């Protein structure tokens, strides 16, 4: 019943896409399409939430007479898909709400409106799919519709290149997943997930499948070194789509990983977790360091998604390690941490992308070096962005801290693992995780501080205006959810029991009945955290201190020019910029990792020209991995190019030759 209702919602989204296509040029199309998306995804959200909280682990299935004739399309709703449906539809509803206002400024609505609902439908379908055919079809549908959205502003510099890189990586990812499902289906070609679940593959096949899934889902999620497309494509799309791509679509990729590796692939082997953990640790630190080097606000956020994917995969890798060793309670803890972070990241990354979209609308700028002082002109956006920045930096009492805390707790129970490789690896990954959390705080001090604080660095920033009500409502709603999930984490953890049980068969202790709503993941006296208490303590002490001081001491306030050690310079160019803020990080971390270098050109004495500093930061993974592959492809294409200019005679002999070779191969095949 619930499943068919959700499928009906997906159909409604597809229909909305058609409405968007037909009516795109009329003025009413924007509110109609986004309004319909908001209503439909909100309904789907309610249905998924209902299933998640009430029905729990029970799985619903449905078969529609679509797709391959006589076989039909299979759909299934279990705890895991219900949870990811909640993530997808919450993000989608918020993006639609934001777009009700933001979409009015869209210069090319006919390039956005038809594809936006299709993108939402695609993500919903991936999560619901119960056979390889529907899964891959929806996956490709999701990729292509988001690709069309990346190309929405195709005349802007760099966007076509971003879209090209994206489609190449997306096709590559789908190919890897196709091969993975081919291996899972086995010689019988059973393409349904339940058949795959029933027949565990041999260890060698399973290992290859794991590699392929890491390539396929990992390239969509943005695991280093497959992240290269993500910071190009995510910022290129309109901001509400960037939010969905970064906050939600990467989570669909995480879903694909969990579904295949934890559900379909059979019992894991311990060294799988080594692969996942190493990749995750590198992804965490590299992602945040890349982000720190950026001065384009949206690109910074996109790179930062890479870091958060790393944190999620640390949790998944630990869950894999515990599961391989049969430590069910620890696996449940690590999986809960990963899924909690999935939920959290979908909240704050959407919020932050909405904020960057609001800034873009208000100023027309994405480059932080041209922003500044927006907290005065856009107070509500600034407030929401501040909450999002604090949440993503894993600061208590907000939600990002809780999921990182849970991940740390699962790192701390890992001495129980028997393998030596893991004993050395897990603490190192824990250190990388801690490093990336601290760097994330630095990154968001920079992002918020340079964009919203200080003095405006351009005329557009100085004359910005607060964005419309719908956009602000979406941002504030997400900020509120960040706070609520941070101070009532037990509610989220209990809701995560269904998905965790669905994949692992075990779950964390129920948190809701703990005294004072404290979070006690493993046991009293072992570790506990109470977000509500911390929040109340901070609020009471801050307000109390302010009240006492204002009442008893002094509340006089005088505005004066900035002090700045007696030499205030009126030009806003004297402020710290994004580049100068990141300079120490570039120097400490970047000289090796990004081949960062600075070149200062001083004018000759007496010359009144300005001195220049040129900074170069390179993506070495691009230089060493992607550029050689791309140039090799080009070289091979050049070699094969003459084949395009042959006579009919030559072509016919080529076809004949190919036929003979194929027949020979078939004849000689054992």
């Amino acid at each position, binding site marked *: 019943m619930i499943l068919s209702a959700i499928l009906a919602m997906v159909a409604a989204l597809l229909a909305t896409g058609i409405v968007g296509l037909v009516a795109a040029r009329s003025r009413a199309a924007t509110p109609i399409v986004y309004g319909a998306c908001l209503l439909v995804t909100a309904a789907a959200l309610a249905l998924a939430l209902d299933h998640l909280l009430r029905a729990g682990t029970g799985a619903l299935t449905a078969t529609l007479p679509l797709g391959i004739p006589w076989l039909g399309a299979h759909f299934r709703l279990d705890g895991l898909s219900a949870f990811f449906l909640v993530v997808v539809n919450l993000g989608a509803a918020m993006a639609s709400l934001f777009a009700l206002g933001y979409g009015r400024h869209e210069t090319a609505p006919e390039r956005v409106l038809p594809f936006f609902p299709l993108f939402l439908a695609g993500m919903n379908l991936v999560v619901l799919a119960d056979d390889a055919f529907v899964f891959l079809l929806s996956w490709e549908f999701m990729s292509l519709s988001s690709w069309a959205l990346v190309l929405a502003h195709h005349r802007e510099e760099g966007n076509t290149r971003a879209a090209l890189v994206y489609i190449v990586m997306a096709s590559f990812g789908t190919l890897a997943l196709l091969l993975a499902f081919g291996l899972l289906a086995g010689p019988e070609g059973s393409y349904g997930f339940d058949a795959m679940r029933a027949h565990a593959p041999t260890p060698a096949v399973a290992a290859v499948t794991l590699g392929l899934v890491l390539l396929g889902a990992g390239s969509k999620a943005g695991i280093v070194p497959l992240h290269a497309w993500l910071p190009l494509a995510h910022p290129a799309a309109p901001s509400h789509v960037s939010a969905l791509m970064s906050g939600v679509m990467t989570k669909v990729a995480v879903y694909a990983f969990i579904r295949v590796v934890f559900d379909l692939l059979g019992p894991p082997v311990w060294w799988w977790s080594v692969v996942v953990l190493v990749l995750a640790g590198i992804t965490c630190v590299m992602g945040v360091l890349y982000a720190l080097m950026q001065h384009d606000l949206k690109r910074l956020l996109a790179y930062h998604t890479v870091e958060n994917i790393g944190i999620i995969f640390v949790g998944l890798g630990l869950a894999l390690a515990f599961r391989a060793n049969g430590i069910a309670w620890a696996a449940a803890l690590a999986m809960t941490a990963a899924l909690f972070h999935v939920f959290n990241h979908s909240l704050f990354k959407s919020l932050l992308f909405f904020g960057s979209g609001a800034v873009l609308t208000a100023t027309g700028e994405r480059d932080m070096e041209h922003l500044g*002082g927006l*907290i005065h002109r856009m107070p509500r956006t*600034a407030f929401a962005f*501040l909450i999002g920045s604090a949440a993503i930096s*894993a*600061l*208590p009492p907000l939600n990002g801290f809780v999921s990182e805390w849970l991940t*740390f*707790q699962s790192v*701390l129970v*890992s*001495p129980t693992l028997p393998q030596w490789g893991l*004993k*050395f690896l897990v*603490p*190192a990954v824990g*250190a990388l995780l*801690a490093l990336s*959390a*601290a760097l994330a*705080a630095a990154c968001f*001090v920079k992002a918020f*501080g340079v964009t919203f*604080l*200080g003095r405006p660095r351009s005329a557009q920033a100085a004359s910005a205006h607060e964005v419309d009500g719908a956009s602000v409502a979406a941002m504030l709603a997400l900020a509120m959810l960040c706070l609520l999930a941070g101070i009532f984490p037990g509610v989220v953890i209990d809701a995560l029991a269904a998905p965790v049980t669905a994949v692992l068969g075990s779950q964390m202790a129920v948190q809701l009945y703990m005294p004072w709503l*404290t979070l006690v993941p493993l046991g009293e*006296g*072992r*570790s*506990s*955290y109470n977000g509500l*208490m*911390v929040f109340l*303590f*901070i609020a009471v*002490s*801050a307000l109390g*201190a*302010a009240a006492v*001081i204002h009442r008893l*001491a*002094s509340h*006089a*306030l*005088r*505005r*004066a020019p*900035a002090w*700045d*050690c007696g030499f205030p*310079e009126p030009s806003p160019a*004297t*402020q*710290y910029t994004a580049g*100068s*803020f*990141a*300079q*120490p990080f570039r120097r*400490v971390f970047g000289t090796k990792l990004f081949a960062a270098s600075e070149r200062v050109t001083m004018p000759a004495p007496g010359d009144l020209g300005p001195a220049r500093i040129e900074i170069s930061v390179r993506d070495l993974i691009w230089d060493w991995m992607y550029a050689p592959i791309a140039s090799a492809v080009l070289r091979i294409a050049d070699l094969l190019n003459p084949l395009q200019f042959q006579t009919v005679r030559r072509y016919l002999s080529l076809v004949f030759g190919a036929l003979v070779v194929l027949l020979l191969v078939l004849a000689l095949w054992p």
Partner: protein
Amino acid sequence: MALILDIAIQGAQMAVVLALAPLLTGIVRKVKARLLRRRGPSIVQPYRDLLRLLKKEAIVADTASWLFRVAPYMVFACTWVAAALVPSFASGLIFSWSADLIAIVALIGTARFMLALAGLDVGTSFGGIGSSREVLFASLAEPAMIMIVFTLSLLAGSTQLSSVIGYMLAGEVGLRVSLGLALVALILVSIAENARIPVDNPATHLELTMVHEAMVLEYSGRHLAMIELAASLKLLLYLSLIAAIFAPWGMASAGSGPADYAIGAAAYLAKLTVGGLLLAVFETSIAKMRVFRVPEFLGAALMLGLLGTVLLFVSRSL
């Protein structure tokens, strides 16, 4: 009745850390002055400074936003809550479960996040330089601190500070290499976190050498008082943390009698004084290092912490 008593003791703990924090700063300053053969201000001078600042009118730059005015209270509140969660004279207080060691570290992170933003708010070059360097130091000090927490909690089987102290008091610890590494790392982190020499100079008047002071350059009046108080509380927090973990002797535990609490309080005062003395001696005997040497300093702390953790991971199975 017992609940009221527990809450009263928790309240006393909060009051004690708040009341003692400026005194500790005063002691350190006095000892440093004496070591430099100056007479130095009285040890209650920080209280006088705070009172004077509180009574003064606050001057706020034209370009400052609401964040500039909210940040001092937030910094103070987060630091105070974190400091109050570190056991001083007694462990196992009623609210001690509301945040474990990781959360205490993160609370200090929240305070720093607000302060670094406040440094950027006015839009001056000094504020920016301070914020940028502060978060650079923090980005290495925080993981080092988390590694220390890992070491301790792997030993004690808990990230709860009260449980860690219980474990250390139980006397089954013996001499452990990991603990030694953790202690050294914790001292390095404490020095960096509190902007002490050789990382930063709390008494500097040369702008380019300042980190913490550059960040709060624009503050005055009651806002500055809050920030100064928060800095004192942070110093107290780290000294209490070192004392509570590595020298937990004399500490009262939940449900002790008044005599135990008196002993605990006396022991705590003694520990703080000794800690302050050692810090002053250390600071006087060393020169400040260049900013870009600090990452090496903190990298050492991080490596020591990691080494301690890995040793424990490995030794579990031996």
